[in-house]
């Protein structure tokens, strides 16, 4: 019986360059197309990113976890009842549903004579996975860095949330600064990246230009400690200058350190 050989793949001769980037280079070819292994690898990454978008955040588990860390928790929901309407109607994700609004108004009343400096919101955003993985350790780092004289209110966990939902929450709670930790739109290589948005004197109608953003917080991105330090630097500056957003450039020393590290790496490749 004649034995047939396996089909020949064209292997790219620049495999060593894979060490310089996580981009999908030197994949090789079957004819001129993707080899089966590479095709399936890509498909799996896409499937994981899709799941990150569509799997709901386990709010109860996160709340319990954070309470055990000593945080007090409020659970709220945006006006988007489900993922489909969340995806089609970004405006719904930027507003609280009625019940959540009443709930936060009640809290505001209870602490009417108390000034709340800082309100932190944890929103599922477009990746529940990133919140599940990074919210707790990041909050722990942030808490460590908050100046003693500041007051941190409850952590608000928001479902079907967009970034601007924090404005309404912050306004209702009378925050000087609201901070939103939210799941970024997942990429194939990073289905679990988290971003922080900070707004001074939050109110409904704030624009993106009023916010500062620290993005790409994940295991292979910005470390928790660096992110937390950057955030507190920005928050202090925001309080001092009474503003946030484009007028407030991130000039924190941590950033300088990060840039210097990058330059060093370039000059002395490992």
């Amino acid at each position, binding site marked *: 019986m004649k034995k047939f050989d396996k089909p020949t793949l*064209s*292997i*790219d*001769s*620049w495999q*060593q*360059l*894979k060490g*310089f*980037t*996580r*981009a*999908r*280079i*030197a*994949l090789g*070819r079957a004819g*001129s*197309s*993707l080899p089966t292994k*590479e095709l399936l690898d*890509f*498909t799996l*990454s*896409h499937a994981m*990113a*899709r799941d*990150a*978008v569509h799997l709901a955040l386990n709010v109860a588990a996160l709340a319990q976890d954070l309470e055990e860390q000593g945080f007090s928790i409020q659970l709220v929901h945006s006006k988007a009842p489900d993922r489909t309407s969340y*995806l*089609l*109607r*970004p*405006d719904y994700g930027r507003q609280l549903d009625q019940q959540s609004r009443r709930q936060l108004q009640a809290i505001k009343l209870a602490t009417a004579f108390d000034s709340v400096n800082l309100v932190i919101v944890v929103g599922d955003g*477009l990746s529940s996975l990133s919140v599940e993985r990074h919210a707790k350790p990041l909050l722990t780092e942030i808490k460590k860095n908050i100046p003693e004289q500041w007051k941190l209110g409850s952590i608000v966990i928001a479902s079907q949330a967009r970034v601007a939902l924090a404005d309404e929450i912050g306004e209702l709670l009378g925050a000087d600064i609201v901070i939103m930790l939210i799941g*970024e*739109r*997942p*990429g*194939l*290589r*990073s*289905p679990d*990246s988290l971003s922080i948005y900070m707004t001074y004197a939050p109110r409904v109608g704030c624009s993106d230009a009023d916010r500062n953003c620290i993005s*790409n917080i994940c295991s292979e*991105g910005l470390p928790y400690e660096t992110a937390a330090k950057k955030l507190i630097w920005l928050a202090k500056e925001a309080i001092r200058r009474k503003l946030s957003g484009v007028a407030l450039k991130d000039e924190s020393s941590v950033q300088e350190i990060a840039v210097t590290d*990058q*330059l060093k790496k*370039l*000059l002395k*490749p490992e």
Partner: protein
Amino acid sequence: MVYRFSVGASRYSFNDLKDLLAKASPARSGDCLAGIAAETYAERVAARMCLAEVPLNRFLEELLIPYENDEVTRLIVDTHDKQAFTEISHLTVGDFRDWLLADSTDSISLKRVAAGITPEMAAAVSKLMRNQDLILIAKKCQVITAFRDTIGLPGRLSVRLQPNHPTDDPRGIAASILDGLLYGSGDAVIGINPASDSLPALMNLYYLVDEIIHRYDIPTQSCILTHVTNQIQLIEKNIPVDLVFQSIAGTEKANKHFGIDLSLLREARSAALSLNRGTIGNNVMYFETGQGSALSADANFGIDQQTCEARAYAIARHFSPLLTNTVVGFIGPEYLYDGKQLIRAGLEDHFCGKLLGVPLGCDVCYTNHAEIDQDDVDTLMTLLAAAGVTFIMGVPGADDIMLNYQSTSFHDALYLRKVMGLGVAPEYEQWLKNMNIMNNEGQIQPVEPVHHLLQGMSNHLLTFKAPIEKV
């Protein structure tokens, strides 16, 4: 003016021309989000029937945004070529479709009337078309541009090599460039979306790509996709800037949201021209657009997203770009929900761009929260290749690790060239053959580890540091 139309016993009325255009648009989530889409299937068709009877002349009389309020409208009106329009001025929108499809309307006639077509006319007629009409007519349009190679010749498909890296690491970027070059991609441009917008970091990237292009004498051009003001500053510092990039949209207010206006684009173009870096042509601009950008900036003025998009091409046309790229699926599902909407939008954009005389390419792409996958990308890029699209993206493995979205790959370009029988830009083809990357039959061939591009570049990658010292 109110437009009225009756179908059987049903009477429909449309408040004005922009309402009629919006109601006639094929369904898409962005127009629903804006609250301007047709409410029933029948209303949509009634709007199309009504639109088919509107004379093209009407578009010169009823402006979608008042002349005084919007500089894009002023540009469209002030640059309208009445001489070129004469040939089609007697037509209704419906007649215009028939005229475009007629065998007697060829590349030459389309070129002759292009400056007489406003973006609103192009958008309107596209709304009466099936996908195959969009493909057939776009295929007849020829828009040819040049810088260091010739883009847009019939039977050619160019590729923007997009070697992005999340921290702009020069070695990572160079590795992706090499990957693309060895797959025969990069004849449209080597275009990097930088993560940083600091000038020293951007300078590094310009030096990096410039060095690669000149060391290997590659007939292509570079572009760093940062804000146009950064590029003007860098040109003033004599940094090697080939093409100037900017995102543009179809209304003055939306452009303001991007931090630009027409005078800034004029300034940028003359700055780029002053460097005189093109060898065989001086199309120095690279624009990116995409349906939904005006609405997302709250600057659509009740105009449907596809018409807004066509208006952006009027801006592009005015600045004679080398390339214009509709980044069709990047904006997200609230504007284009699924594969069907994506495919339609990509074909409409390409058609409108080409009809207006813009060298339109397409970033056939999607984000992970849209109902789109690589099969939809395959369908759209194949249809666009059939329509004669000027260029597509080449991203390693279709996975952009900096912008976190999926696009088309070097492999995809090889597939399209094979299935549709398309070549690369002629100057670039010669280079690929000289470099033994392409054989005489036009096929990409494997290279040995001793290939001098691989050898030279590998060493180069490891020692690349010259620009850093200049920081």
